[in-house]
């Protein structure tokens, strides 16, 4: 169910757009901040609140990268696989990350701490290769640097 706080935030967005569907991406983002992902049931709740059909809303949700329709780990590791990072050694880095985390792209670690996904160019091409973890950008990445970063997240868990 949508909490009152969520409803209030979504209403503000609807008001800003002057149109309920116009606020649907913000509505999903608002709900996802709280739930971490959007289940079928919650998709229906949001759709009803916006006066859209669940199928229509899911059509929107499934189009975008940062809307999760399956449970994800506590931290999202987004790996830039675009051309500058590729030139600067993305493939070797990915091999290392896959080994270190024990998951491939799209996978979630058994402890539920990390989900690793591909992402398009992060706009840090002069400091490639780059990844983002949640809202933080990491650049000039090496396998050693990645290990240190991951260790910090593990310690913080």
């Amino acid at each position, binding site marked *: 169910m949508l909490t009152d706080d969520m409803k209030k935030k979504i209403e503000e967005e609807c008001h*800003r*757009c002057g*149109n309920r*569907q*116009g*606020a*649907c*991406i*913000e509505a*999903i*983002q608002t709900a996802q901040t709280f739930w971490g992902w959007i289940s079928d049931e919650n998709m229906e709740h949001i759709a009803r609140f916006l006066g859209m059909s669940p199928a229509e809303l899911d*059509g*929107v949700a499934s*189009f*975008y*990268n*940062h*809307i999760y329709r399956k449970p994800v780990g506590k931290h999202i590791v*987004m790996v830039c*696989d*675009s*051309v*500058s990072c*590729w*030139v*600067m050694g993305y493939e070797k880095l990915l091999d290392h990350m896959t080994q270190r985390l024990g998951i491939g792209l799209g996978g979630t670690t058994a402890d539920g701490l990390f989900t690793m996904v591909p*992402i*398009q*160019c*992060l*706009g*840090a*091409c*002069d*400091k*490639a290769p780059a990844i*983002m973890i949640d*809202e*933080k*950008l990491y650049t000039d990445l090496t396998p050693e640097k990645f290990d240190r970063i991951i260790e910090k997240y593990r310690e913080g868990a």
Partner: protein
Amino acid sequence: MEKPLTANFRPGEPLSLKEYEKLGGYQALRTALKMGPDEIIQLISQSNLRGRGGAGFPTGTKWSAVPSPKDLPGTRYFIADADEMEPGTFKDRLLMEGDPHQFLEGVIIGSYAIHAEEAFIFLRWEYTLAQSRLKSAISEAYSRGYLGNDIMGTGVNVRVHLHVSAGRYICGEGTALVNSLEGKRAVPHSKVPRQTDCGLWGRPTLMNNVETLCNVPHIINNGPEWFKNLSNSKDGGTKIYAVSGKVKRPGAWELPMGTTIREILEENAGGMRDGLKFRGVMPGGASTDFLVEQHLDVKMDYDSVQKAGSRLGTGTMIVLDDQTCPVGMVHNLEHFFARESCGWCTPCREGLPWVASILKAMEEGHGQPDDLDVLRFHTKHLGPGRTYCALAPGAMEPLQSALVYFREDFERHITEKRCPWR
């Protein structure tokens, strides 16, 4: 050499509103509000400012295409496209992080010039630092009266909304972006009617790139002649050029428009890393044709790069060195475009994965003798005019040029049945 766009850049936090004002910030907005919309548009047209998002359309012409309130009364929208996602491109991020008020001032002046009271900044999700800096800049501008109702007692209203996208490359395409703002799948549609007549929620809508808008306050402050004189070519102004790949000093620099590729690569990026040789460069992001050694003295302006057979695009170069596989690089690009296709037009939806799979097979040693013909066939049939938007034609640009300049590399993959670089 003047560098207006990056003059206020400094390490750490960008200028606060007060600091920006002390350096002449928002003076252009004051002037613009006295000039009125028609005069602003005239000034921008005279300056030869061309869109910095990739297409290079003259900004003044674009602004004057929005119908006047006399001809078409009612709501109109202004959109700043801050959805920078072209692989290899990071100039708008630097501009938003480095001087958010400069960008915002451009947004406000642009909105006023087309009589728009509502402006949207469409920002990509991943630009989290730019997001927080823009949020504070917007809130400062509201409290100082540069945004909101009755701006500085002139009766002009401009409200700015920051939309953080849920992320997808295609959102950078104008009509797709509008669909996304309306809460739909970001699928591009026909360019007719034009967005300046019928855009967001069916209303006249103007869209400009971040770098384009950052130029606007400086043109108002210093005039079109000053702006034209910044440039080494007939397109006005400076340009944020950038280089990534295996050069000594990858980075971004504000230089006169029309600086040569050689100067950018050698003097600014420091040349190739030791032991590596230059083989080619995509001059303006992932959807531009490769240029090679013979093009190093080409000026990086719209017409010169086009004459050389590519596009200035975003002006952010990706360098290919002699120890990186060109086929692998093109495979990476086509894999990207195949994934980012919105799936609406058949040639793009079906053609790009096919192209990517052929290149993948080549890389894995399964290339077939007729593969090059099949790839060439695709470069024609995914080219301009067969899809609603420029994604597929853009995807074909690096491929078609690679087939010309790196033909031997493709052939070696097929005859040797392996990637010679692996």
